[in-house]
């Protein structure tokens, strides 16, 4: 439905906000643009909405080039980070605005506004001003306003970042439900990865203006394409070292924690720098008689209680800390600080990537 074709945006002469972006968004898809601050997410969204034009490349909507179409002709609903509800208009006037801009009749407008406000369950707030609503309510009105003219696509730039955690989690589910119910395409920007994993059909991860990987949340977690994604999505222990051998899917890396066997996550050359990423939940504490494909000895540095699970930090070598997730709360109680501890994980649970990719 939306196609970015080698889209590049350069601010000034050297800031490559977005670099050679190729991305296709399908109909009724919930796609999230995820990335650290300054990675080019907003710029990508603004080019799609028509507020910025690409320095080079094309953007298509339903096969039509829209690269230089003005924003008011694009029929895309946009929800801004701080809602951008017009402060001098009542909620009803805010909702009617896009319909009036399309020359709709008064009665039809009133009807549509009523339906739309019921959709977000704020029926008795029509005559208030945006300033008189809470953050969550304003958020829902902004959503209703972006949806009221039945756009094919809704773009949202960190719409939930101003809300507190509980409200944010509720709104995530609400937005997701609305998207399914109305059958619309949503392109959603966030730098909160759990938000991305909860809501999205697919996630596009950006870093330094480059698209790193696009896939469904599960693959993103299980099969990160490079070291950046492995570190950015979820939690990972990163062990830096040198590639000793790389054959088929198996790689051996010499690290501060000794020789580590892992799956090959990315093309590697023997003798090159590499990192091995291991999820905390893949590591377990070994009993004295137990062994694993990768066995590492260290001292217990820290015990962290997190309610439903615990976490320990194990110091390995000089300055490597490995985080281990313990599902069994009682397992942690048996451990004592600064005591030696043996941990291990299977060779399938480590992924080896090139160090600077």
């Amino acid at each position, binding site marked *: 439905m939306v196609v970015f074709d080698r889209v590049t945006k350069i601010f000034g002469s050297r800031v490559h906000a977005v670099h050679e972006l190729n991305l296709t968004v399908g109909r009724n898809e919930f796609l999230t643009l995820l990335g650290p601050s300054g990675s080019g997410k907003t710029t990508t969204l603004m080019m799609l909405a028509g*507020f910025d034009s690409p320095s080079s490349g094309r953007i298509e909507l339903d096969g039509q080039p829209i690269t230089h179409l003005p924003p*008011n002709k694009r029929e895309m609903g946009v929800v*801004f980070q*701080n809602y*951008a509800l017009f402060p001098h208009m009542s909620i009803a006037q805010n909702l009617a*605005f896009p319909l009036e801009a399309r020359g709709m009749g008064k009665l039809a407008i009133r009807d549509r506004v009523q339906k739309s406000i019921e959709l977000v369950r704020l029926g008795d707030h029509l005559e208030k001003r945006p300033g008189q609503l809470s953050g969550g309510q304003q958020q829902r009105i902004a959503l209703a306003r972006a949806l009221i003219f039945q756009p094919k696509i809704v773009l949202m730039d960190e719409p939930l970042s101003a809300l507190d955690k509980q409200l944010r989690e509720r709104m995530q589910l609400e937005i997701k439900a609305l998207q399914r119910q109305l059958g619309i395409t949503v392109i959603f920007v966030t730098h909160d990865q759990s938000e991305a994993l909860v809501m999205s059909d697919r996630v596009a991860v950006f870093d330094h203006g480059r698209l790193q990987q696009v896939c469904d949340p599960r693959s993103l977690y299980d099969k990160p394409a490079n070291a950046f994604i492995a570190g950015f999505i979820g939690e990972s222990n990163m062990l830096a070292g040198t590639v000793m051998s790389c054959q088929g899917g198996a790689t051996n890396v010499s690290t501060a924690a000794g020789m580590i066997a892992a799956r090959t996550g990315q093309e590697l050359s023997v003798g090159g720098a590499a990192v091995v990423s291991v999820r905390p939940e893949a590591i377990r504490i070994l009993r004295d008689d137990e062994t694993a494909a990768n066995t590492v000895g260290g001292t217990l540095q820290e015990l962290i209680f997190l309610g439903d699970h615990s976490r320990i930090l194990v110091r390995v070598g000089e300055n490597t800390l490995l985080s281990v997730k313990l599902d069994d709360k009682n397992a942690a109680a048996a451990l004592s600080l600064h005591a030696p501890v043996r941990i291990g994980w299977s060779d399938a649970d480590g992924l080896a990537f090139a160090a600077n990719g």
Partner: protein
Amino acid sequence: MTQAAIIASDMPPASPAADRSGRRKRRNALLLVLPLLIFTLVSFVAPIVIMLARGVSEPEITRLLPLSRGPLATWDGTALPSDDTLAAVIADLAAAQRQRQAATIAKRLAAIRSDLRQPLLAAARAAATPPGLTPEGLLALDTVWRDPASWRALAELAQPFTDRYLLQTLDLTRNASGEIVSVPDNQAIFLAALGRTFGIGLAVTLITLVLGYPLAYFICQQSPGLQRFMLLFVLLPFWTSVLVRTAAWLVVLQTNGLVNDTLMALHVIGEPLKLVYTRSGTILGMVHIQLPFTLLPIYSVMQTISPVYVRAARSLGATPTAAFWRVYVPQTLPGVAAGCLLTFILCLGYYITPAILGGPADQMLSYYVAYYLNNEINWSMAAAVSTVLLVLTILFYIAYSWFTDPTAKATR
């Protein structure tokens, strides 16, 4: 409900202890602003109160009539005053003549009835010359003294408070039977001056708005560095005095000034245009001085408006023009209202610019304040004109606050 009410209703009821500490805090805060309060009272409130009082009284006259003031006030005004009253008047006139103040009384009396000036001067002279005057002698001195109307005029002058100056500033007066009526057309000048003051103020306000709004918008669109630079130019006129700037316009606009010479040299015009001592010259000079006052409040409001609103409007389907007029401009209205009010109120009090660049028919109310102070030495009349100016300004301010009060709008 207003924002404040929402907050207030959310707050827990204050405990007595908290109330006490709050009171102490308030008292300390009051002590801190006390110097300012005293300064304001002495330098601002007191002069205004004295000025307002001046507009309805004439202490220098009532002081000159200490003996006759009381009897004249109780006199019924129909028949001639009693001999005792006449004796008191004679004593006052004699004293005034000796203090060389009889002319002052005569002048003010003439403002009420012009034909009484000479008879009063004559009476004062006679009263101060030995052997003095008897009541009969006074009545015999001039026929006017045998007319109760003349005595009514003097009685009015002797009153401690009077509304005649305030009435005069509205082109009103009291007729023989004490009713308020309009003055004859040939004496009516103040309503016209008032209308002129409003007209010029309104014209200057509108012109500064039309010039200032786009300029403020333009400045707001520039990079921060450039914005500071451009604001410097907007503020540049503030560095020279109003008098100097107005005089500069005189040089530029006069018959053989820069504009006329240039246009003549270019053969655009055959003979010099009359640019100074006209209404347009006055307005031009005032617009130049007032432009920053209108522009700056608008600019500061514009700066707080995030560009995201216009973007949102565009994404919702509005054309650039519709987004500007329906979303951007309404949000700048508080700045427009503040800037226009500031300029309009300042315009009401303009004196120098119309005096230098305007013709006789372009003078505004302040001119009359200066005129009565400097030429007529009539402080009460000057105070009355000032009072009218002050009341108008306050009325405008009230209207402004009513229009711009968000709570008033929400309930409308």
